[in-house]
């Protein structure tokens, strides 16, 4: 697969704060790549550097295998933090400016406005738009001229649930068209729902990266109790999918390989002559998991 963006040893320091440190990332064509990390982990600084807004202290990056240039930026659609438009111009005029800069015609404007359901407001001033509409216009602007790559920095920040759903739907639609997407987010859940690949950042350093399904694999556990905990433990460890177990609060937390339904465990215990007094499925919350990942790597 062709490499779209490769970042080699990129660093940026603001005074005492090392915003980005020796970052190495490679993004291939067609990936939906998540940059995941808490606020202040260097996601926006990294994207800012790759878009020539911020000058790196050291390190290099390449778009499409070439040194960065205005021409490579014309092949990228970006939504960075807040939607940036001229407040007194209509969406149509604002998009015309974007198209003029990128060197595209104006024919595509109707399509992108339709895609984000803003066609009926195409003549109103940008300043009259709600935040959700502004964010959608920003995405429309990024979509102009069918870019090869789309960069989205916290695209659902500050939106209401309906707005979030709308934006995610649009992103998935864009991704399904084969456009490479780079998404910065502090929401694990968002990255997990949308992305195929992820790099986790903390304090400007990359902790790990890879396919989402592997990096963010979640282990569920089933919590059990019975009159004889010892016997219960011995019995359950003979389950063919048994992985590990821990004791706490008078319960057994049992982890399995693959999916195991609580009902199946109940039946298994019953068949082995044990009557369960407690049976519950415990999902480790995604946020908890993310925090654990960060902690483990401190």
């Amino acid at each position: 697969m062709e490499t779209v963006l490769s970042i080699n040893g990129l660093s940026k320091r603001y005074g005492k704060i090392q915003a980005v440190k020796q970052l190495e990332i490679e993004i291939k064509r067609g990936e939906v790549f998540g940059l995941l990390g808490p606020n202040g982990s260097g996601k926006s600084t990294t994207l800012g550097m790759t878009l020539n807004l911020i000058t790196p202290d050291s390190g290099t990056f390449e778009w499409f295998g070439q040194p960065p240039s205005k021409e490579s930026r014309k092949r990228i659609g970006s939504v960075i933090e807040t939607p940036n438009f001229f407040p007194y111009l209509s969406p149509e005029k604002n998009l015309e400016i974007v198209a003029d800069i990128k060197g595209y015609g104006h024919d595509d404007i109707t399509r992108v406005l339709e895609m984000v359901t803003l066609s009926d407001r195409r003549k109103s001033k940008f300043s009259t738009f709600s935040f959700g509409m502004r964010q959608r216009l920003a995405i429309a602007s990024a979509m102009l001229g069918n870019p090869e790559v789309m960069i989205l920095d916290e695209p659902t920040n500050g939106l209401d649930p309906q707005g979030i759903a709308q934006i995610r739907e649009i992103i998935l639609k864009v991704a399904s068209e084969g456009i490479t997407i780079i998404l910065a987010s502090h929401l694990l859940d968002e990255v997990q729902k949308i992305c195929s690949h992820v790099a986790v950042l903390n304090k400007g350093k990359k902790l790990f990266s890879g396919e989402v399904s592997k990096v963010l694999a979640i282990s569920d556990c089933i919590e059990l109790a019975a009159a004889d905990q010892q016997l219960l433990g011995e019995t359950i460890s003979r389950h063919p999918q048994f992985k590990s177990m821990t004791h706490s609060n008078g319960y057994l937390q049992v982890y399995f390989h693959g999916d195991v339904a609580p009902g199946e465990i109940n039946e298994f215990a019953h068949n082995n002559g044990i009557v369960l007094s407690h049976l519950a499925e415990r999902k480790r919350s995604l946020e908890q998991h993310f925090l654990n990942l960060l902690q483990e790597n401190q």
Partner: protein
Amino acid sequence: MIRLLKIEFKKILTYKTFWIIFGLYFLFLALGILLAEVMINSMVSNINSHLPIPLPRAVLYTFPNIWQNMTFFASIRYVMIFPAILVIILITQEFANKTIRQNIINGMSRKEFLVSKFQFLVVLSLTVTVIVTMVIFILGITHTDLGSFSDAFRHMDFVFGFFIQMLTFLCFAFFFGFMLRNTGLSIALFTLYTLIIEPILYFLLKAPFMFENKIYTYLPVNSVIRIVEYPSIPKLTGMLGFQIQDSLSPLSLLIPVIYAGILLGIVTYVMNHKDL
């Protein structure tokens, strides 16, 4: 190049603030030009009441001296400050709306951004110069005897001087707006410097050295203003013993151009090295 200018115009032409300030500018410009003769003559009659031999009335609107007279009135600080404020608003709004970032993200180079702004400064200066020229021409035609039309365009070089005045002054304003990035602050500081600080400096520098050196003529805004000097009112100024400028001096054109060049150089350096 035309592409960049087109983009710039798309940003500006439907901006209401732009037209309001542009309108105010022409209002003040028209007042300045139309009231100039009345004001000077009221001064003359004031002086005359103390003199045994009365001075002749000033005639400002006849060819060819009208070119110098009116470009002088069009280039006083209080009038030129309007287009300067306009320029400050246009550049600082790019920072306030973060559209400068978005332009770069979308594939404009930093150099192209500056070029588009400079092109706009040139076009704005040209537009103003053309309008002023037309006003002078109409005033001149209606106030000059048909007999003396032959040398009507003799002092038109002052129009070129006015263009340089406008362009360099707008470059100063652009520098303030670009470096400070904040609309209110830039307008306040620029106005303060142009209308108050520099005139005070001028006075302080001039008083002790009146006959020794002329360092005060090198103050930035003053160097712009001096391109076109006091109105040439024949007879009147001759009788008062003023030395009258009768053509543009290359040095007086060069000084503000050098200032503008240095400031634009700083702007370019900052644009290329600072984060947006």
